[in-house]
């Protein structure tokens, strides 16, 4: 259908001018001796938004790229794409069905909150140790496995979700601490050449080890924990009227359009709780302040009497624990396997790169954006044969584009 070409053309147009903008703007800015750190992304956005109409004045007047320009250009780009999409696929659910879009957005945010928690762990590790843990997905997996086995055991089966979560937290924390002390501490002591590469490889080894250790111990059968809590069954305002909220034990429906499964809702709520707990820890406790001090200025912190090695251990263990907790909540949503951590880890990488490595708000916002993109990608891509098949790629496209256009991410410190 000719209509569909509209969207393709719009996409091509945006990508083409975006590429032109991102390639030439930094050169023009550097020739005029202006700050070029934001020129790649700025040029790309302005080019994508306005094409030559935007680029030519941009290159002539070379304004400073403020966040306002970023925001305006991003909105225009999104607008163009959405309009073209709506023109090209008038029957697509994302165009014709508001309830569907609302549902996708809600689901994206809900799952994004859970992703955020995991990414927070990774970004915490990065901000203190300066490394990315490639074993993050395995902490997530282990967290879920611990919850499953506790829930299935006779000893803890009736203990309830909070105990299971605590168990997952303890196990992942301990694994993280032991590993840090054994394998990462020498790095902090400067005994290791090329510490970053060492860290990549050694955490990679840990990921390998944990994944197959769990498989060896627990087998590779898919498992799943029971629902933590049931919803109370309610219907508001009442059964006769068109309802605003209606719940069953396993589902929550709003306005007869948005449906949130209980397990996801509970996981997201637990994630939010943990998020607040983390913020409290970081900003209101002595140890948390110590952590932040180390991330700001290592030397000054150690002068102030904080043992940076202990902080490293704490940060790595805490980061692993956050991943473990996020797995622990998600094991009631997804079927669990020893390999389940790999896509989750990949998603965390996307989030922290998008949010800015080491930035806590970045991990939070990035998580929600990635959740939204995955939900809308799978929900809106017109071809049902491709929509789901490309799920692993949506996040990775964000990752690569961020690294090319703005390596510091949304909230990273400008270099």
């Amino acid at each position, binding site marked *: 259908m000719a209509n569909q070409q509209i969207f393709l053309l719009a996409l091509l147009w945006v990508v083409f001018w975006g590429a032109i903008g991102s390639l030439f703007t930094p050169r023009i800015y550097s020739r005029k001796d202006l700050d070029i750190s934001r020129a790649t992304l700025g040029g790309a956005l302005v080019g994508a938004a306005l094409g030559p109409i935007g680029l030519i004045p941009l290159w002539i007047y070379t304004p400073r790229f403020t966040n306002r320009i970023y925001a305006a250009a991003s909105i225009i780009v999104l607008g163009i794409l959405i309009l073209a999409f709506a023109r090209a696929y008038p029957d697509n659910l994302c165009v014709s069905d508001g309830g569907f879009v609302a549902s996708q957005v809600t689901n994206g945010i809900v799952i994004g909150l859970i992703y955020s928690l995991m990414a927070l762990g990774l970004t915490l590790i990065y901000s203190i140790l300066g490394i990315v843990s490639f074993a993050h997905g395995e902490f997530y997996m282990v967290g879920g496995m611990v919850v499953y086995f506790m829930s299935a055991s006779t000893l803890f089966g009736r203990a309830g979700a909070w105990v299971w979560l605590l168990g997952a937290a303890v196990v992942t924390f301990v694994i993280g601490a032991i590993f840090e002390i054994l394998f990462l501490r020498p790095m902090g002591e400067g005994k290791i050449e090329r510490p970053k590469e060492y860290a990549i490889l050694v955490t990679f*080894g840990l990921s390998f080890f944990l994944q197959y250790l769990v498989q*060896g111990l627990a087998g590779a059968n898919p498992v799943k924990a029971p629902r933590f809590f049931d919803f109370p069954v309610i219907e508001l305002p009442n059964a006769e009227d068109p309802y605003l909220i209606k719940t069953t034990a396993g589902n929550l429906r709003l306005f007869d359009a948005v449906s949130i499964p209980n397990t996801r809702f509970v996981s997201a709520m637990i994630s939010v709780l943990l998020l607040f707990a983390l913020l409290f820890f970081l900003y209101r406790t002595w140890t948390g302040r110590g952590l932040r001090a180390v991330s700001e200025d290592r030397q000054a912190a150690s002068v102030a009497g904080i043992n940076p090695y202990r902080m490293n251990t704490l940060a790595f263990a805490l980061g692993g624990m956050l991943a473990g907790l996020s797995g622990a909540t998600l094991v009631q949503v997804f079927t669990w396997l020893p390999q389940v951590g790999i896509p989750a880890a*990949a998603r965390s*990488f996307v989030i922290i790169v998008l949010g800015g490595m080491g930035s806590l708000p970045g991990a939070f916002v990035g998580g929600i954006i990635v959740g939204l993109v995955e939900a809308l990608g799978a929900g809106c891509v017109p071809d049902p044969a491709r929509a789901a098949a490309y799920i692993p790629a949506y996040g990775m496209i964000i990752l690569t584009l961020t690294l090319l256009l703005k390596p510091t991410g949304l909230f990273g410190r400008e270099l």
Partner: protein
Amino acid sequence: MMKRSTLLRIGLPAALAFLLLIAPLWIGGSPYIMHLAITAFYYAILAASWSLLAGYAGQFSFAHMSFMAIGAYAAALYGTYIRITTVATETCREIPFFGRWLVILDPIGISQSSQTNCLDLARQTMPAGSMIIQPSIWWGLLFGVVAGGLFGLLIGALVLRLRSTYLALFTIGFSEILRAVISAEIDITQGQSGLEMAPLFPNGITLFGHSYSASDKIPPYYVMLALFLVIMLILSWVVSSRIGLFIRAIREDQEASAALGVHVVRYKVLVFTITAMMAAAAGVIQGHYIGIITPNILIILQMSLVIAMAVIGGLENIYAAAIGAVILLFGLELLRNSFTIGPVTIDMTTWRLVAFGLVLMITLRFFRNGLISPLIDRVMRRNVARETVALRNAATAAATPTATTAGEGGSDE
């Protein structure tokens, strides 16, 4: 002394190569061992070329398997969709090609109902005696290598500014996108069911009067061995040439290298391109040998195997990486057995990988140059050490006391 070192430098590899050349005399009777050997060479190529990229040039790329897959898929697509006919088919997309016709078949996807191909239609109308030729797979190898090189060039140029962690993440991203594309574009790539690839010698081959069938292991053994040896030759040439010197300097300090006149950009991209081409070549041959290629060769486990092989062998030594790959491959495959201790049956399929992860971590932590590399160094640097001792003695004799003691000669730390 020079003679001894030359002997070691050339004689040892030559002896090893000769051993590998005549190895089928002993292991030729066991197709399984031959199969492992072929696979081992394949991994050795990947590990050695990755060690050039990561160990020498310091570019920790996780996209190495992607280049391999690009090569293999390029060759597989070429083999699946390209035909040459002597007469125009009129039904297919076709291009005149040196007096013949280059026919591009339609993508068919996975389907059990046998769809009629445009060539089948054409066959009925074509005059008798006209030929349909499936072009040689060796042009497919060329095609794959070029495709791999082009992508290597592209990725190398894109990641110029990215270092360590960022580079690793970017290349993981690229690899995952590629995997998603290959699994999703089923019409062309046949997705998870994989593209079939013709055997290396579809009609068998006659070597020294002995004819081998298409499924015989001896011819692919020699093809893979030849590729392995050629690539090791190129790699040794690269590392001993100015390229090797420069990429190591760049790894150590990019700015300082530039300030000393090294064209950083060129050498970084160059090393990406060269290693990508090598990976692609290995992928093409392995694909033809195995007979099928699926997107699963891109899963992170595969890449981690190559990385672990290079690391355990010795990341900063191409020979160590290659030997490490061979040893580990044999180790991992031969351990694929379960054994029983008393009442407990231990299924080694999983536990060998647990051990593997552990070995990887311990190697990194305590043997940073890998397990093989120090051995090679010990042999190769023996006379260097002697020379160093001599120099140092001379220095002491000349009463020029060194202010601060340096580490020991040829130390690994």
